[in-house]
């Protein structure tokens, strides 16, 4: 009976990734709104007539019920929430990128409700908009912020001097933008202010913010390679 004490019903969640497990089951990496990232077994989900088959899709809002309190929970049921068109073409690859970031940077069992809501909104944007680069930059910034690595974008590092749009700065990891240092990534003040406002219309801001995000993410990934980034790069070469 102890398993039922740890039973959770109808929790909003997304599947980040799934692996085949045993003969007919799936091992799921779940991002739940109220309980963070969890591992879960979906028993029999790979059977030909399994009702879970068409439900446990990545990028689809679901309501999951599960039990267990160990490292790997057991999925009890899944409900389709709908409202999110399946991601196609480049948007689909961008979706994989989001999931790869979350799998690599988000600790297990650590709830991030605001990040969950932002992820949901980002998937909507990927499905309906065409400037995926801007969508990804916004997500990267908010994700780092929610995970406790917020960027300092409106003030100079270690002071309350506001960033000036026309001035040149160097951005140093875990420090911020400064005019007085030699190292770090050189950026225009406007790029930082545009990032603060989630505005990526300016091509220079788009380009510099991409470089900045790449540097910061590589730092937080501590040597892990993002395979999706490689894949998108390979695709763009053709």
């Amino acid at each position, binding site marked *: 009976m102890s398993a039922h004490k740890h039973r959770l019903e109808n929790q909003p969640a997304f599947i980040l990734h799934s692996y085949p497990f045993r003969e007919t089951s799936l091992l799921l990496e779940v991002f739940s709104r109220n309980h963070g990232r969890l591992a879960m077994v979906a028993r029999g989900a790979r059977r030909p007539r399994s009702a879970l088959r068409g439900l446990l*899709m990545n990028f689809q809002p679901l309501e999951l019920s599960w039990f267990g309190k160990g490292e790997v929970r057991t999925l009890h049921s899944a409900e*389709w929430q709908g409202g999110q068109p399946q991601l196609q073409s480049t948007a689909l*690859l961008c979706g*994989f990128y989001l999931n790869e970031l979350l*799998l690599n940077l988000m600790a297990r069992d650590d709830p991030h409700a605001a990040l969950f809501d932002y992820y949901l909104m980002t998937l909507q944007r990927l499905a309906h908009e065409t400037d995926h680069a801007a969508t990804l930059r916004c997500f990267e910034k908010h994700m780092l912020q929610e995970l406790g690595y917020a960027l300092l974008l409106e003030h100079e590092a270690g002071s309350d001097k506001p960033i000036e749009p026309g001035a040149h700065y160097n951005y140093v990891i875990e420090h911020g933008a400064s005019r007085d240092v030699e190292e770090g990534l050189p950026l225009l003040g406007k790029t930082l202010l545009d990032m603060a406002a989630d505005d990526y219309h300016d091509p220079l801001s788009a380009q510099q913010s991409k470089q900045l995000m790449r540097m910061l993410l590589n730092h937080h990934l501590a040597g892990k390679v993002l395979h999706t980034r490689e*894949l998108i790069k390979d695709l763009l070469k*053709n």
Partner: protein
Amino acid sequence: MNTPSSLEDLIAALRCLPGVGPKSAQRMAYHLLQRDKPGALRLAHTLGHAVESIRHCAKCNNFSEEEVCVLCRSHKRDAGLLCVVEMPADLLMMEQAQCYRGMYFVLMGRLSPLDGIGARELHLERLVRRAQEQPCEVILATNFTVEGEATAHYLSTLLNAQGIKVSRIARGLPVGGELEHVDSGTLAQAVLERRVFSE
């Protein structure tokens, strides 16, 4: 009790099979040695023979004993169609359905960036070369999982850039399916991808 080292080796070797842990491997080893020695010898012989003689067909990439497999050599197949599937089991399914008389290309996997399987790991350039051998339509029959969809998108971009005609198999309600019993994901996608009824 001391386990003889050759028995230990056998148990360790059996564990290379998917889903076989130490306990199952031990059970299999005992069974083979105690109850079915001729079966064990047959297994050893056929396994050795298969590993030595089976390779990938130069045309379709499926398992084959010859340089080019029987299906690819057949004159009855339509060389103007090239169907891309993920695994040999998918090719068998297509053949069972008796709906297709063209050629095949078996990817032996799918793109799965989260598992570290990219374009290089799948040797997709081989498919592009195969499709360029003669004018043909490439039919993408990868699975309708997110990975299968990503693979289809990647391939279509790759092949379109070479001016090759690409199509994707359709998805929707199963034949004989009732709306009442179909899962929401399939139904939602079927509505989204509905098509115009024409005469």
